[in-house]
């Protein structure tokens, strides 16, 4: 599905900004809310939530490359029960909708987490993360197989009437086949995509710089790859495509919208600039006005 780059909507709701905050780099939006930094944000996507609490990976979890960032957080989160009890109630204060990002170690876990979250009135929808590169079980492996994506989407569809997006991997398998599988399975959007496998090694010692060796590569360096994938996927599914990967300046957002994205997620940039969404929105509006006139 492609869309007008000047009008921004998702799941029947219109927004005054195309900027979403990506999963894992904005918490549940509460720290940013407290900072007064949610201006310009259309939707917050929460950090991944799993059935059980997860400690996440041992440090170092982050390392910079010359032109990007590698992360290996490993879905650290307090588990869905704690999210329901301690976090979602406060999320009622958010000035924008919250999409809860859901991850799982087994195919069934996704639907199980969503099922629990149905008990809360807060989620605007879900993002089913079948593409985390930083966990031993699941992660990339789920997203790489269209059959698995289809099964997971169907199980989630069964437990919720809320809309959900499936966040796909660019690392393995066929992104277009997985996107079609998500659509067939009942997903209401696909997120294209998660981080790219990346690594740094200290050649002097031969030691990887991340504890888990390989991590997820994000940053402006990956933008052209996201543009290509959004372009390809949006021409082969009818559900909206949410772009994620490499957007850091207003032109990036406009390019991803032109490639066919309905909305654009911003991740790494928010870690550096808590006010990224507002800054980006101002820039986007200026560019669009210049071009209109």
């Amino acid at each position, binding site marked *: 599905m492609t869309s007008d780059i000047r009008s921004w909507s998702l799941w029947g709701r219109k927004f005054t900004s195309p900027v979403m905050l990506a999963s894992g780099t904005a918490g549940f939006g509460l720290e940013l809310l407290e900072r007064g930094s949610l201006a310009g944000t259309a939707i917050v996507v929460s950090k991944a939530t799993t059935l059980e609490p997860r400690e996440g990976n041992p*440090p170092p*979890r*982050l390392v*910079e490359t010359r032109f990007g*960032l590698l992360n290996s957080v490993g879905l*650290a989160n307090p588990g869905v029960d704690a999210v329901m009890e301690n976090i979602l109630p406060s999320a009622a204060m958010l000035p924008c909708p919250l999409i809860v990002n859901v991850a799982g170690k087994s195919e069934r876990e996704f639907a199980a987490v969503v099922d629990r979250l149905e008990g809360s009135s807060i989620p605007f929808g879900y993002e089913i993360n079948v593409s985390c590169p930083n966990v031993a079980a699941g992660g990339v492996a789920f997203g790489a197989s269209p059959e698995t994506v289809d099964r997971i989407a169907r199980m989630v569809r069964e437990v919720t009437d809320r809309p959900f997006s499936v966040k796909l991997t660019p690392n393995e398998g066929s992104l277009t086949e997985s996107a079609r599988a998500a659509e067939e399975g009942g997903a209401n959007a696909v997120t294209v995509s998660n981080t790219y496998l990346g690594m740094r090694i200290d050649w002097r010692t031969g030691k990887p710089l991340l504890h888990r060796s390989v991590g997820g590569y994000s940053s402006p360096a990956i933008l052209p790859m996201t543009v290509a994938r959004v372009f390809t996927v949006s021409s082969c599914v009818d559900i909206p495509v949410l772009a994620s990967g490499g957007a850091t300046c207003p032109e990036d957002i406009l390019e991803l919208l032109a490639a066919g994205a309905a909305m654009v997620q911003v991740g790494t940039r928010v*870690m550096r600039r808590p006010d990224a969404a507002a800054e980006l929105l101002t820039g986007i509006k200026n560019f669009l006005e210049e071009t209109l006139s």
Partner: protein
Amino acid sequence: MMTAQGPDLEVTVLENREILPGVHSMVFRTHGNVYADSLPGQFLQVEVSPGPFPVTRRPLTIDGLHGDDCVRVVFESVGSGTSMLAFKPVGTSLRILGPLGRGYELRPGGWLLIGGGLGAAGLGFLASRIDCRSVLLGAATSSRLLPLPGLPVLTATEDGSRGTHGLVTDLLGSVEWTAIENVAVCGPVGMMDAVIRQIPERLLGMTQVSTEARMGCGYGVCEGCSLPAAAGGYLKCCTDGPVIPAADIDWERWRGGNT
């Protein structure tokens, strides 16, 4: 659980002095009084370049305040980010986010301050707010020793170029422990771990350490800055710390690097 964290400010470099080889003291004029209430042990996140890279900021401890509207850091040029920062001339504007994180709990009673290398950054600031009885400073060599004027400092260098020939832990024997009710430790993990294992047990619960971890955001959203917690799992250096009660850390996992 959450702590309101300082804003993102456009500041001006007011001073940039190389105080030791490769070590710079930099003062930022903040054009406001945001830092007036900052606590020793808190830090700020410096955007070292307005350009796209590096992608994240660099965390630096607040080394002190100058008047109401200036804040000072002391940093060593060790890699891409800090070396860019070292070259910023006076008058450069850049962004700093802060003050961030938890500083020292400024409890009453006598304090012992222990610093290793650049870890001593911020100890002067701390000393000005508490009853400082003694400071132990260790470094590889004399040119790595930060000056702490006016404080009761004992020094050890690994090459013997100043003070005791040896490690900072070799100075522990000289401490008048009776006067001490609080301990602050900051420096490399190995040094902090060695100190923790050698100080009198009654002080362990009164010891605060200033930790470091690779940071992403610095304000609690990315889960990048994990430190192994004594209770299992991880603490976040940026919001649970950087100053953390020594007893809350799982030293074995942290020290081992196999965390």
